[in-house]
């Protein structure tokens, strides 16, 4: 039997009611905001939730929490620094930039230097994720990276890569329509989708197509743009090029198609007047975006994308009617500002519906960054950027081997987990990636990773020590499970875990309590400290190997 056949045979048939989607809508959730609800909300908005995160939000109202998530107060992260040393053979090494200083303002076209800088950018981004602030900024930055997907290796110029990325982060919670315009004129995007090669004599339809298909209208049933519309949009977009000295794009009338562009009935047969002035290119783009954003489809498409990112991928007629359509209405009536949409979604009965919880398969970034944050893995002080970039590189490599290469999604469509029906998130989990996920958590829990003489490792005892009552094995287990899983386990399973891991097969709870108390009072007792450490380590390792840990 081949793998596929085996797979099909062994997947249990799901009865219709197991596929049921929540019937609730956007009415504000009025239930109590217990730890369970907070974990659910924060897990979807952050990359993993630490105990400190939970404590920070505990006791606040839902509207206060969501408002805080939507309004970042933390300063933007400082840009990536030079932590690499170009080989002696490099033609044009950036010796003018000191180690530890940022390279993002230094023009350098050397291929080797740019390759080192792109790697530096990825490590830095991983560091930003691990040190994320308590807002939606990072989760939305990655959302936009997946939405306006670009690949660093195709862009080449590391300064463009950073500029593009910085645009996504600074505008992560801003206005979608203006973001689309800035993305349209972004040097990295002009390279990636060939906009800089799009001229009146040799039109390149790449960006004109993706602007409609992937960025604004999608391929939903209501999206009726035509091949002629793709061609017409491409003509509107002609004439833009990049200046590698100023790191910005500019318009050249002589490369622009100055004729009128006529669109289909989907766009109400709009005619965009051709211009031949210096700012004509930008005016035509404004016309184009006004036309596109006048359709109902843009808001519907974006709301489906956001729903898939934050809630679940199963958008049936019920979800479409109760959630997507009213959400799209909010989006339109707020002139395409993102915040009111997220505000409504993340405060809704639907979002907190029991059917909406625990069903999001963690992306590799969720898993890798989430483990570090949940377990409060300790990195080096910022001054030791060399070591930290080494650690971040390790995490970038793991996520990449689990099929999510930060900065380099597979293509312009982004990661398949967010669009490929019918599997969606399940694409993250296969016979290659699931063992890697387990290997990753095992390694960080058991051995850690040593770089430059320093180590990152899950300190299980510190994690458990931060729980309210670690001396009680029942409460320890319940609290630990609640912080790592969005599922509760049955009393029988908990009893087995307690017996097998914390009590080493004994039946009396006080054996754990005695060992824990001795550990707290006399940590210098090496034998006891080791046994407490090992039991906690094995328990955490085991929990992270359960399927429950892969879900958020």
């Amino acid at each position: 039997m081949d793998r596929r056949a085996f797979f099909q045979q062994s997947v249990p048939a799901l009865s219709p009611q197991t596929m049921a989607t929540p019937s609730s809508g956007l009415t504000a959730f009025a239930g109590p905001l217990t730890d369970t609800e907070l974990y659910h909300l924060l897990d979807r908005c952050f990359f993993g939730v630490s105990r400190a995160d939970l404590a920070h939000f505990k006791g606040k109202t839902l509207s206060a929490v969501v408002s805080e998530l939507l309004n970042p107060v933390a300063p933007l992260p400082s840009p990536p620094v030079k932590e690499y040393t170009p080989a002696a053979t490099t033609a044009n090494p950036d010796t003018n930039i000191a180690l530890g200083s940022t390279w993002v303002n230094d023009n350098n076209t050397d291929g080797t230097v740019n390759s080192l800088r792109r790697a530096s950018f990825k490590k830095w981004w991983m560091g930003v994720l691990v040190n994320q602030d308590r807002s939606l900024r990072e989760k939305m930055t990655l959302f936009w990276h997946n939405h306006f997907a670009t690949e660093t290796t195709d862009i080449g110029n590391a300064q463009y890569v950073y500029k593009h990325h910085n645009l996504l982060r600074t505008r992560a919670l801003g206005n979608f329509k203006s973001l689309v315009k800035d993305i349209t004129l972004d040097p990295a995007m002009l390279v990636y989708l060939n906009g800089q090669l799009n001229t009146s004599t040799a039109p390149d339809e790449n960006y004109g197509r993706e602007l409609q298909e992937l960025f604004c209208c999608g391929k939903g049933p209501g999206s009726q743009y035509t091949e002629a519309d793709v061609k017409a949009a491409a003509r509107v977009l002609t004439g833009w090029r990049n200046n590698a000295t100023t790191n910005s794009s500019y318009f050249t009338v002589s490369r622009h198609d100055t004729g009128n562009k006529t669109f289909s009935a989907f766009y109400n047969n709009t005619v965009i007047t051709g211009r031949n002035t210096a700012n004509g290119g930008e005016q035509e783009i404004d016309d184009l975006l006004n036309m596109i954003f006048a359709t109902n489809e843009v808001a519907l498409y974006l709301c489906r994308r956001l729903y898939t990112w934050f809630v679940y991928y199963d958008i049936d007629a019920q979800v479409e009617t109760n959630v997507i359509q009213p959400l799209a209405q909010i989006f339109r009536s707020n002139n395409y500002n993102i915040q009111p949409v997220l505000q409504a979604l993340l405060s809704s009965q639907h979002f907190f519906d029991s059917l909406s919880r625990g069903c999001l398969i963690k992306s590799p970034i969720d898993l890798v960054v989430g483990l570090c944050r949940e377990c409060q893995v300790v990195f080096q002080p910022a001054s030791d950027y060399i070591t930290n970039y080494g650690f971040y590189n390790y995490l970038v490599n793991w996520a990449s081997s689990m099929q999510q290469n930060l900065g380099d999604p597979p293509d312009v469509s982004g990661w398949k987990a967010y669009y490929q029906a019918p599997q969606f998130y399940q694409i993250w989990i296969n016979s290659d990636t699931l063992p890697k996920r387990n290997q990753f958590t095992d390694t960080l829990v058991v051995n850690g990773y040593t770089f430059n003489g320093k180590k990152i490792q899950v300190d299980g005892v510190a994690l458990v020590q931060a729980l309210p009552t670690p001396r009680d094995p029942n409460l320890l287990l319940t609290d630990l499970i609640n912080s790592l899983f969005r599922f509760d386990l049955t009393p029988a399973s908990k009893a087995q875990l307690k017996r097998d891991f914390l009590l080493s097969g004994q039946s009396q709870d006080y054996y754990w309590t005695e060992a824990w108390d001795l550990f707290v009072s006399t940590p210098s007792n090496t034998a006891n400290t080791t046994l407490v450490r090992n039991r906690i380590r094995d328990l955490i390792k085991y929990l992270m190997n359960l399927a429950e840990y892969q879900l958020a």
Partner: protein
Amino acid sequence: MKRRDFLEKSLPAGLLLPGLVGGLSFKAIGAESPLSPLFLPTTETDHVLVIIQLNGGNDGLNTVIPLQNFSNYVNARPNIYVPENKVLKLGTAGKAGLHPALSGLHRLYNEGMLQVVQSVGYPTPNFSHFRATDIWMSASESNQVVNSGWAGRYLNYEYPNFPNGYPNTSMRDPLAIQIGSTTSLTLQGPAVSMGMSISNPNSFYNLVNGVQDPAPATPAGKELTYIRTVSQQTQQYATVIKDAATAVPQQVTYPTGNSLADQLKIVARLIKGGLRTRVYMVNFGGFDTHAAQVNATDTATGTHANLLQRVSEAITAFQDDLKFLGVDERVVGMTFSEFGRRIKSNASTGTDHGAAAPLFVFGKNVTGGVTGDTPSFGPSVNVNDNLPFQYDFRSIYATLLNNWLCVDSRDLNQIMLKNFQTLPLVNAGACKKAVNLSGENLISNYPNPFQGNTVITFKTNGGHTLVQIMDTTGRVLVNLTDREYPAGTYTLNFSGGTLPAGVYYARLQNLSVQQVRTMVKVK
């Protein structure tokens, strides 16, 4: 000088201390008997060791009753002693006997398949369950912390490259299997666990996930089921275990409502099914009998008797099954518990944590009999008095490694960390070592053992590479290298001249790959 000769000269000579005087009858065929080759295994790698852990501290004095010292025993335990006329006498001398609930084991004894080793323990015993369990599993000294298990070190010795390149054609099966959700310290190697845990080989779900709650009928339940399904398919050893389990259609009847029997039934099935797994570990709990271990009206019955009965019935059914399946030549089992219990019983018809206790070794190739003196103590014992040990538990391990799992006696020290006597417990037959050079060797050293310097050779796939030296406690002594390398093979010099003699590990970390090399430092 050859490696073996060198090692032998450099280590203290083994103590030969059989300590059998005053013991009971022995079966005629001992470990050194010329008849031993009759028990030659059919293939060179098919000896299996089954370790039964009795969690909680089994009451040794009420398991093997000291008939030779019966009146003092009654004095010490007036409220819980087993009446003499109910004790199942061992041998004609009758110096000791089994609890009446152990009738199955008594039968095995009479058939020459049970060895009772009296008063097994270690110097300066520890009375904490956790710490004592770790001592038994790691085979450490009482005051020493060792971060690996004795069977894990054995498997690391046999399969030094594991897990790199495993499974492979010469070892496609798990090296060790623990029935249950956790893999114990016993099976922990110097860097990675050498064992895997399974609950039920018929259910792929439980191959990895001992704990498995039903998936709810929600979107979350749908995703959970999906991940579990992939997990089953991708479990490295799922197919070989399932194949082994399904290859055995019929077994003898095992007792029901007996979790030890359930576990041993799985073990018998996997052995017969063809797994080349060397070590199995099962456990059975409830022996922490501080109170009410007997029924006051009939002290031969009660909680402890029920536990012993389950142990006896499970082991007997297992032994019968091994015979029925035709694999009884290949299997030896042993029991252990973290400690025995106090000589003097307490007022609540129970016993507190104690020290030395008897241990059972069973199997067709076991030298039947009793090893050691019947425990003796005076007519009035103090509440804190404990039985002194006659045999170090590590002698049992060393014996089974040497005489049953065929480890060369000159290599025992790197597993047991020091020298221990071997005892006449099993008929070894002509032992042949397992093929141990499969897998991908990424790190080695020469010379090994070493006195001053040794050269470490490692292979990296490129990228960040670390080589560090650790001791048996898991402490890192030095990072020999910690930097980027192009892919290739490199050497490093390690100067260990100032280190105390003992076992050290060289650990290679190359991004997600790791491997550990055992190095022996000698004076």
